[in-house]
């Protein structure tokens, strides 16, 4: 295909920012998402802000080359920003698919043990469903912001608020690094 116009340099990148704005620092994902929607406007990247990850997002993911997940994390130092790749379901299929339940979506570190709850799934599961249901293989990056408190109430803690610009920069970098990846429809 031909060279992409400048206005579509991040075409094929999907940002999924996740969290509940009524649970304190869990609102970090939506906060970053809202800022990214402005920052990435006109680049071709799509930004979606959701309360929680759901299987329906697999279709959006399947149409993307890279998915950047943004979420608050309970297992990181408050105010820290972590970036890690999300496990590729393709790699796991090649080596045998491990049986696994949905992830708790608040994990910024390693995969958690299988979770019996079907309402909340994790980034790996979104990509796995994109693969199993739509034969797509986007890669994924998780940008996590260490949270101080998930207690009910709107507004971020001062610690997490200070980390928001760094999280935005990390998400933009992750989007730019994935810009070269083709979407399924481009392949």
């Amino acid at each position, binding site marked *: 295909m031909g060279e992409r116009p400048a206005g579509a340099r991040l075409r094929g990148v999907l940002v999924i920012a996740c969290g509940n704005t009524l649970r304190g620092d869990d609102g970090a994902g939506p906060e970053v998402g809202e800022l990214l929607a402005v920052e990435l406007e006109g680049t071709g990247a799509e930004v979606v802000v959701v*309360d929680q990850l*759901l*299987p*329906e997002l*697999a*279709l959006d993911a399947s149409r993307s080359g890279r998915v950047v997940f943004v979420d608050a994390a309970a297992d990181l130092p408050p105010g820290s920003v972590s970036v890690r790749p999300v496990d590729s379901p393709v790699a796991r299929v090649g080596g045998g*698919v491990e*049986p*696994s*339940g*949905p992830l708790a979506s608040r994990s910024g570190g390693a995969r958690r043990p*299988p979770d*019996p*709850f*079907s*309402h*909340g*799934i994790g980034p790996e*599961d979104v990509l*796995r*469903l994109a693969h*199993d*249901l739509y034969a797509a293989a986007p890669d994924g990056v998780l940008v996590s912001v260490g949270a101080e408190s998930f207690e*009910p109430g709107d507004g971020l803690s001062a610690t997490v608020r200070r980390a928001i610009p760094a999280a935005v920069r990390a998400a933009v970098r992750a989007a730019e690094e994935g810009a070269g990846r083709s979407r399924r429809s481009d392949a």
Partner: protein
Amino acid sequence: MADNTIVIEPVTRIEGHAKITIQLDENGKVADAHFHVTQFRGFERISQGRMLHEMPSLMARICGICPVSHMVASAKACDEVLGVTVPPVGVLLRRVLNLAQIVQSHALSFFYLSSPDLLLGFESDPALRNLVGVAQQAPELALDGVALRRFGQRIIERLGGKRVHPAWVVPGGVSRPLDAEQRAAILEEIPDARARAHRSLEWFKANVATWADEAAHLGEFPSLHMGLVHETGNAAYSDGLLRVVDGNGWVLADGVDPRSYWDYLGEAVEPWSYLKSTYFKPLGYPAGIYRVGPLARLNVVERLGTAAADAELAEYRERLGRYPSSSFHYHYARLIEIVHCIDMIDEILSDPDILNPHVRARAQVNRNEGVGVSEAPRGVLIHHYRVDDDGVVQWVNLVIATGHNNLAMNRSVLQTARHYIHGADVKEGMLNRVEAVIRCYDPCLSCSTHAVGQMPLNVDIRDVDGALIRQVSR
């Protein structure tokens, strides 16, 4: 003293926090069982002192799965306080929104929460018993489920502005009319959704014989059934009057104006649950046990009101009898309702007048009390408010679908436990069936009690003296 109590905690793949306790007698047989709702709702109290016009949006926050039903019931209660007549197109648009929510909620219940048991087996590896497991074994079934849920959510998003907690339904109607572009986009997606709904229903019918044992023991007992019915006898989801029939089809109450619900429904409180048990007053407690939701709706109506769904309803009744009494059949009823709701959305949106901009009536407070009723995905939902002359809310009573079903859920748990559990050596698959009977009702405990947090379930098994002998926690 032997320890003879099994605890399942948390109950999984339901909406809310709960646990089940199963008490064994001295011979190791199930003597009693309870479904405990362990979370607490506070919305009836939280609402006091709020302004009436805030209520639909505030009430929507009760639940992330069925906020639309709360908005509709709340707005109808507000309509009555204002004394307004909602413009006909406003009524229809609210109806579309509620139908879309039923589609997405039913899809979540059937495909995400229950199909793993049905497809993979009640005794299959619990680590695989989820939608990811379904996607690996039967991708088309999972695809249909995801697509149907997405279909319903996208309608809510298009009409209400967002998928969860839209603020579009307001006292007097809806806040803005439907535009032609949104209408076209929804109508364009209907053929695909309809095909997926029929394909899923065919899959269920083709496999239903596989689950004969579950159908016979997961909540198979006669009870009353209650639902909203139009004067024509068709199903009503956002309007209509209450009808109550017994297990033989005798009509015990009909044409009941929801305002008089208190003449028919009583609420009992048990010390082991935060969820009130609602019962049919004329029969007393607990004899007035009744069910609401898909199974009950199909029992109380004469027909659904759309051709394809009515053909399915006729086949359903031919297979199961005119008044099916097993809670396992909630699944079948749910799938038929998805077909019906999609066809109703098509029918309503195909009327050119649906683009009429007159969608809201405005007024000040003209009455001090209002009752609003809708059919939530799980059954009849009642909002009842009292306000002062300035529209400040003084008192609220919410009667939630899951509360209507509380007695039936407890009876179902006992029946299922008695059939599958013998002694304290309990296999996971047996416990899963005890949980599965709860999932048939698709309870929403966040709605019925209001909770914060995730949604676990426990099973306790206790001995004749009440001592805990086994607890299963998830």
